[in-house]
């Protein structure tokens, strides 16, 4: 038994050692609990909140874009989608049958829905049908009793009330692209968010976006929303008011579209506000908001009229004879000619061995600058250009807004080109040729300009001030009590061109439209208070070789459309107090293959007549448009 007692003592001793170890380990547990729950408690509390609280951003309504009278151009249309929560729906096939009986549901839709249901937790809402109209939504809504788990979600989708008529001005929105994701704005991460991709939508994107709202929700480990803890509505984006007059824009777009590929601009030169900026054909900008199909995209890209190009600001054309008033201005200001200087036009002009032709076979006889502009004599301007030189022409062109960007507030503007001696040497390495000055003198050769530059140029001739075109309008929507501009804006500095020079040019342009033998006599405005002055132009697309000219120049519809000349016209009105200016470019002479005076001038006639009739001094603004009524179609 002694031995047994010995092992008993060992047992007791060792049990006490174990007990000591256990106490130490329990103390370690207590210490660890203290560390976690006291020392590190703030950190873990934060992590627990991060676990359970999910902050979701709410897309704010995008700001509206309206015309000068408040007519909505870009709005947010309510869109409805039917969603189903599978766990509440019961038999999903029955649900699909019932929904299919109410709204069209293709076989592909059914497959997508069933696949989505398999791939998600059963509490995740699955979209049954997107972009339903109000009637379809209502049909589902009234049958809600038969459709457990089905609900209607409302969203907003960008809608362009006038579709293709404003597509080049207002632009469009589309889903955020890869590059645009690198933005500080958290909104760009949201799948429903759209950004401006062109036009005013792009230029004023940040103003239009607004501020995101937030919804703080408690979620469980599977992402199921348990409840909403806090909700803050976003702030809608700013409304952008354009100087555009939608009625005028409508006329301009219709007239241009009738000519196939054309552009027209009307500017109030006293304020610089663009009243109409048409580039035909347009495209449906609403389609971009929901995403274009490859077929739609291909149709747009393959269209020979190039509907995606905003020709008014990005089309570059030889100005043709519309350049002649500018050459005359440069020459008069340089003093190389006076209003009475006369040249003889025999129908051609010889420089060395080269012969330069006048458009009029047989020539104009002896004429001074007024008749040279009125009848668009080429030989007179070969003389004049040769005298004044290309650099002084270029200097004046830039001063009047040609060959430089107008900085209009939509992206995509082209610079065009006004050549100088230095430019040619630098780009081609070949010295300037005298003959090139002659070609440039009638707006051909290297010279190229945009329709917007032409409108700016005529606005500067018409006012004598450095008018700059602008789309967004200061001072908001016009109402009956809005102040009306009664003189040229103080923001526009004088051009520094002598008044007498301007008077000669304007008077000659009066002759172009209002006197017999004027190249646009057929397009005159007869109302004596609204008389228009202007200048025609025809821009060669292809150089006419001597042998072809010898055989007789072929014009009009006899040559392929792509090879026909462009028809141009610039104009201002009323002549007594010039205010409204217009430029029209009809590519390849339009539907009839006609020249500036025959095709482009009538469009300018209609636009300037309408612009003057709508002059704010003569009219009260229309009854404000009901945006809601429009939105519902």
């Amino acid at each position, binding site marked *: 038994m002694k*031995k*047994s007692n*010995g*092992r*008993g003592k*060992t*047992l*007791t001793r*060792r*049990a006490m*050692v*174990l*007990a000591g170890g*256990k106490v130490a*380990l*329990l103390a*370690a*547990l*207590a210490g*660890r*609990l*203290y560390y*976690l*729950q*006291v020392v*590190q*408690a703030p*950190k*873990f*509390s934060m*992590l*627990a*909140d991060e*676990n*359970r609280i999910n902050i979701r951003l709410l897309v704010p309504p995008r700001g509206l874009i309206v015309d000068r009278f408040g007519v909505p151009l870009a709005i947010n249309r309510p869109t409805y989608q039917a969603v189903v929560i599978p766990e509440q729906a019961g038999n999903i096939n029955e649900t699909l049958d019932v929904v299919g009986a109410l709204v069209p549901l293709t076989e592909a839709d059914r497959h997508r829905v069933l696949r989505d249901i398999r791939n998600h937790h059963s509490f995740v809402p699955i979209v049954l049908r997107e972009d339903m109209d109000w009637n379809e939504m209502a049909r589902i809504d009234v049958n809600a009793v038969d459709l457990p788990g089905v609900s209607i979600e409302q969203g907003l989708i960008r809608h362009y009330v006038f579709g293709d008529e404003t597509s080049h001005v207002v632009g469009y929105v589309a889903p955020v692209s890869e590059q645009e994701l690198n933005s500080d704005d958290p909104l760009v991460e949201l799948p429903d968010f759209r950004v401006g991709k062109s036009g005013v939508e792009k230029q004023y994107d940040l103003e239009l976006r607004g501020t995101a709202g937030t919804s703080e929700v*408690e*979620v*469980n*480990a*599977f992402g199921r929303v*348990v409840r909403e803890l806090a909700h803050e509505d976003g702030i809608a984006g700013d409304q952008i008011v354009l100087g555009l007059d939608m009625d005028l824009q409508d006329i301009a777009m219709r007239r241009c579209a009738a000519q196939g590929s054309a552009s027209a601009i009307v500017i109030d030169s006293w304020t610089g506000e663009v009243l109409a900026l048409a580039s035909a054909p347009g495209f449906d900008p609403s389609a971009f908001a929901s995403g274009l199909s490859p077929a739609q995209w291909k149709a747009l890209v393959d269209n020979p009229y190039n509907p995606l190009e905003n020709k008014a600001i990005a089309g570059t054309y030889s100005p043709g004879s519309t350049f002649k008033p500018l050459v005359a201005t440069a020459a008069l200001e340089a003093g190389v000619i006076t209003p009475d200087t006369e040249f003889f036009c025999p129908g051609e002009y010889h420089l060395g061995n080269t012969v330069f032709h006048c458009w009029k076979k047989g020539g104009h006889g002896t004429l001074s600058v007024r008749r040279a502009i009125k009848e668009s004599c080429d030989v007179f301007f070969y003389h004049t250009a040769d005298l004044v030189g290309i650099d002084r022409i270029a200097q004046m062109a830039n001063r009047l807004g040609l060959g430089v960007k107008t900085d209009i507030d939509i992206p995509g503007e082209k610079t065009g080109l006004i050549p100088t001696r230095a430019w040619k040497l630098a780009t081609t390495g070949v010295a300037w040729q005298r003959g090139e000055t002659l070609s440039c003198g009638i707006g051909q050769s290297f010279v190229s300009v945009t329709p917007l530059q032409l409108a700016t140029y005529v606005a500067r001739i018409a006012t004598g001030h450095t008018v700059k075109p602008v789309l967004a309008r200061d001072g908001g929507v016009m109402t009956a009590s809005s102040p009306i501009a009664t003189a040229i804006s103080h923001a526009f500095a004088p051009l520094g061109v002598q008044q007498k020079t301007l008077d000669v040019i304007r008077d000659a342009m009066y002759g172009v439209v209002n006197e017999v033998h004027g190249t646009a006599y057929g397009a005159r405005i007869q109302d004596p208070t609204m008389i228009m002055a202007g200048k025609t132009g025809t821009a060669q697309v292809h150089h006419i070789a001597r042998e072809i000219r010898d055989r007789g120049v072929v014009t009009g519809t006899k040559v392929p459309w792509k090879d026909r000349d462009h028809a141009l016209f610039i104009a201002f009105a009323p002549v007594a107090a010039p205010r409204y200016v217009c430029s029209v470019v009809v590519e390849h002479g339009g539907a009839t293959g006609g020249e500036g005076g025959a095709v482009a001038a009538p469009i300018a006639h209609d636009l300037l007549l309408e612009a003057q009739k709508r002059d704010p001094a003569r009219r009260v603004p229309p009854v404000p448009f009901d945006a809601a009524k429009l939105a519902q179609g």
Partner: protein
Amino acid sequence: MRWLYDPSQTQQTLSVKLLNVNWPLVALVTTIAGVGFAMLYSAGNGSWHPWAERQVVRYLVAALVMLVVAMVDIRVWLRAAYGFYAVTMILLIAVEVRGAIGMGAQRWIDLGIIQIQPSEFMKIALVMVLARYFNGMPVEEIRNPVKLIVPALLILVPAAMVLKQPDLGTAIMLVLGGAAMFFLAGVRLWKFAVMFAVAGAVVPFAWHHLREYQKNRILTFLNPENDPLGAGYHSLQAKIAVGSGGVFGKGYLSGTQAHLSFLPERQTDFIFTILGEEFGLVGGLVLLALYAVVFAYGYAIAFRSRSHFGRLLAFGITTNLFLYVFINVAMVIGLLPVVGVPLPLVSYGGTSMLTVMFGFGLLMSVYVHRDVRIGRYGEAEI
């Protein structure tokens, strides 16, 4: 020669035995089980269904088993030890065979009425068999290393089988529980040093045999931040739950981690997180204190026992219980890797509850028969 013969201690009537049951310990055990019911009610998002109600029923059944075990003479348990071990071993083999035939991990045997987990029973069986083995062994034999081969195999064979199931937690429990029995029996310390060395040599080999998820858990324990959504998820979410509870907790039924399902296994191995989250440091320490009192009771019962077998059994069971509690809480609060060990009396689970209560039954049997003297082979020493 009173210590040689005391008929009143060997021939107690049932009513006397019932009176001799350590009722304060029963109350303590019930209190801890009550904490478990409350936690399971919370884990069920404030509902008796599905866990709390079944746990109460299990506890009542297990409590009955405990009392029955306590009534049975300690010598009967001594004699039954080898048989009990053998039966458990057969069940373990049966599970292994079925697991080999079936798919994946197999720890359960379905007896129709209840499903049992033989590896759980093995924890108690091992204590019983080692207590009997060392009871029958004088000091000089304990010093003979050859005599230790059999008990070492008694530990290592089931441990290896459990490890292969694979159930790392239970395997560790078996090895540590068995080692504690060796230590209590008086095995020389240098032999433990040798075993540590051997174990150290075996580690690379064992590592090779661990399942991928077990390796991940150990690696993740060593560096939990490197995989917060994968293998580290359990560990991190448990720490967030306990840590965010602070000193006084978020309040009963208000634990966000538990109620928003961020805690996996919250009703079984990770039930301590609910306590830590909803009752904070105070709640956790109170539960640990309750367990500490239970351990103290176990020690008191062991010291009070006059038989070597009773003492070994009581110390062994108490140590086993301690290992349960320590490993579970330590893994939940990130002191040990996540190995599947339930929190005794609190975690949801039938076999675990039955095993623990069976252990308490044996402990009480030791107390009820505290004055019974037992010879080397289980006979009463008269």
